[in-house]
């Protein structure tokens, strides 16, 4: 079969089982768009800004576990995509991003819409390629999907000069069935000796703590984690990225840890004698001051990426391998050992934890007058039965969503944890809704974040993606304001927006439903009304307490046991 480069690209996507490309056309990718137009297997979602395309593909990938696919043009198309690519990179999300490039003969000549895509994206991708010859197209795409989805996943950029997709140049096409790279062979199976050593430490722990991250979700190991945790009866805490991998409504779950983690989780970390870290990377938002981190603990660390191990915290038993495979082996060994051994010590450890839990660190001051943002998230949980896909932007609302929406399933909580990208929530929600049209999808956001990608409200109308936007509008860039209150004597430098759009009218002008909610007594009703409109996007503009802070808080430079409580 002889095909052009554009046709080959489409055929490769079909072979990879790609159902949707999120993108935006332009000069350098016109041949590819023409090939897409002439087939019916691969859908295309036309966004309004390339950043939106990448976040949408990212939301789709996080919700489904499948790689997200993006197609953008050269120059500004590619540079607009960079924020989205970096976002996916920091959270290890598998994406394949096709960027157009100017004609090969023009590369390096400062041609119209030329930019060095490979150079610009290099530090924020797992890998990138430039296809220089149409005969390399199929193999390169095969490698791109392979690299993006295996090992520690991540975004891969494939840069394609326009002449490579010339419809007049046709070459024989065959999609490679397999791919093998001598330079890239991720370790799946953990070292059995290390696993044995770890389990020995684990079952003999007196004050254990299980700490898990996004790796458990990416590695589809939530069931194994749940089994492992229940078998041992140990307390478990999760990072922002790890929420949902263990049911939040279970007694063994202590909530999120870290900067805005719960008192019980952070105190548990500080006092534990064995820390079992699984698919987590000891991020600075989790550890606080490294010199004060888990001072009493022997640490077991399971991660598929060797460079995550002993990067920030030196660990005692490192295990490189896929979380699912390692946990399966661990469960077997824990069973053989007859489960946890130190029954008596564990009992007093749980007593201690229950005392910490008794502090009720997530309680907040109720008001009849003004809407508390935490309350909105709690009601959102109730109205959606705790089972919605929830995306967020970045800031206070993100923390409240993480703290108050108890995620019981993996893949349901979708947020930009690593890069902290404002503007992520709306397009990510649209990507999730595209993947799961029958599920409820809510975007918890704020009036600052939503304006960073609000143009995608237009995409939502075009493709009938009736998500629900829960905007916690406090008139401030809330997290910035909170830091200014705590650490800059209340000098609120540029954290107040003196002019905001009328969000009801904004939603309406894009063809959606807008609501403005001002009283606490109206919160639940508004949410119920909004979610009852199954086929409409509803933008709920909640007027919330401008001075509310996220508690608890571990200030930068403090240890996890040095929290600010309400």
């Amino acid at each position: 079969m002889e095909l052009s480069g554009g046709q080959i690209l489409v055929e490769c996507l079909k072979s990879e089982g790609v159902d949707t490309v999120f993108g935006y056309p332009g000069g350098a990718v016109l041949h590819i768009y023409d090939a897409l137009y002439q087939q019916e297997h691969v859908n295309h979602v036309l966004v309004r800004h390339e950043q939106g395309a990448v976040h949408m593909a990212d939301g789709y990938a996080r919700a489904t576990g499948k790689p997200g696919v993006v197609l953008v043009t050269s120059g500004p198309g590619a540079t607009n995509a960079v924020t989205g690519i970096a976002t996916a990179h920091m959270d290890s999300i598998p994406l394949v991003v096709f960027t157009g490039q100017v004609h090969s003969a023009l590369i390096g000549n400062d041609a119209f819409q030329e930019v060095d895509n490979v150079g610009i994206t290099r530090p924020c991708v797992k890998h990138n390629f430039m296809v220089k010859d149409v005969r390399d197209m199929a193999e390169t795409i095969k490698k791109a999907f392979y690299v993006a989805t295996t090992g520690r996943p991540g975004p891969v950029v494939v840069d394609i000069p326009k002449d490579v997709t010339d419809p007049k140049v046709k070459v024989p096409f065959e999609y490679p069935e397999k791919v093998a790279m001598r330079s890239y062979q991720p370790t799946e199976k953990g070292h059995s000796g290390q696993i044995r050593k770890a389990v020995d430490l684990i079952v003999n722990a007196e004050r254990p703590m299980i700490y898990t991250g996004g790796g458990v979700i990416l590695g589809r190991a939530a069931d194994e984690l749940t089994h492992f945790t229940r078998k041992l009866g140990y307390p478990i805490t999760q990072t922002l990225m790890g929420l949902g991998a263990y049911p939040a409504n279970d007694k063994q779950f202590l909530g999120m840890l870290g900067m805005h983690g719960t008192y019980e989780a952070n105190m548990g970390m500080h006092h534990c004698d064995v820390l079992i870290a699984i698919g987590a990377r000891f991020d600075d938002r989790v550890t606080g001051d490294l010199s004060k981190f888990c001072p009493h603990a022997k640490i077991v660390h399971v991660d598929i990426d060797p460079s995550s191990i002993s990067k920030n915290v030196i660990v005692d038993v490192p295990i490189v391998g896929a979380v699912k495979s390692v946990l399966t082996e661990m469960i077997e060994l824990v069973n053989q050992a007859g489960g946890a051994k130190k029954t008596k010590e564990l009992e007093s450890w749980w007593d201690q934890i229950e005392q910490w839990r008794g502090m009720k660190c997530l309680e907040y001051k109720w008001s009849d007058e003004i809407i508390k943002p935490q309350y909105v998230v709690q009601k959102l949980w109730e109205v959606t039965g705790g089972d919605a896909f929830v995306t967020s932007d970045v800031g206070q609302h993100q923390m409240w969503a993480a703290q108050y929406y108890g995620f019981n399933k993996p893949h349901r909580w979708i947020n930009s944890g690593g890069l902290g990208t404002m503007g992520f929530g709306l397009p990510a929600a649209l990507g999730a809704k595209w993947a799961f049209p029958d599920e409820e999808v809510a975007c918890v956001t704020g009036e600052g974040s939503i304006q960073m990608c609000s143009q995608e409200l237009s995409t939502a109308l075009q493709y009938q993606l009736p998500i629900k936007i829960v905007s916690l509008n406090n008139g401030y860039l809330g997290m910035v304001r909170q830091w200014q209150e705590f650490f800059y004597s209340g000098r609120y430098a540029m954290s107040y927006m003196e002019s905001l759009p009328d969000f009801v009218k904004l939603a309406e002008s894009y063809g959606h439903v807008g609501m403005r909610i001002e009283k606490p007594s109206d919160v639940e009703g508004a949410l119920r009304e909004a979610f009852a409109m199954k086929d409409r996007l509803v933008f709920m503009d909640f007027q919330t307490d401008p001075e509310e802070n996220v508690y608890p808080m571990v200030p930068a430079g403090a240890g996890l046991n040095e929290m600010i409580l309400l």
Partner: protein
Amino acid sequence: MRHIISILMENEAGALSRVAGLFSARGYNIESLCVAPTHDESLSRLTLVTSGDEQVIEQIVKQLNKLIDVVKVQDMADTAHIERELMLVKLQAFDAVREEVYRLADIFRGQVIDVTESSYTVQLVGPGSKLDAFIDALGSIPVVEIVRSGALGISRGPRGMLVPEV
């Protein structure tokens, strides 16, 4: 501590920039960097000299291994090895100085490879410390320019860096 790290990479366009970019992005030092093709035309051998404590070097090796184009990484400090560097030094050489330069080059087993009425260019091979010693020994002899290749390293014994099977 100073480490010589040897890297076998796929001989692809941009491979070098991935290594250089990694070092600048993560704030690691590069003292020198040397890259050239090998007897296997699909591979490049890259030798870099860096410094850092044990944890930093461990991260450097891991991060290098994480680069998709990197086939093999070896910290030469882990094995008995030989270090060599090539240096070309152009010196102003008049009258009595000419004799002095010639003698110094001889002591350091260097060769004079270019001569003019007013200059000598000396070629010298050895570990970096030997080249430094030569520069020190020149004393007040005026240097026009110095070109150094950066260190190369190779392990002692019959075995080479193994390329993993696919």
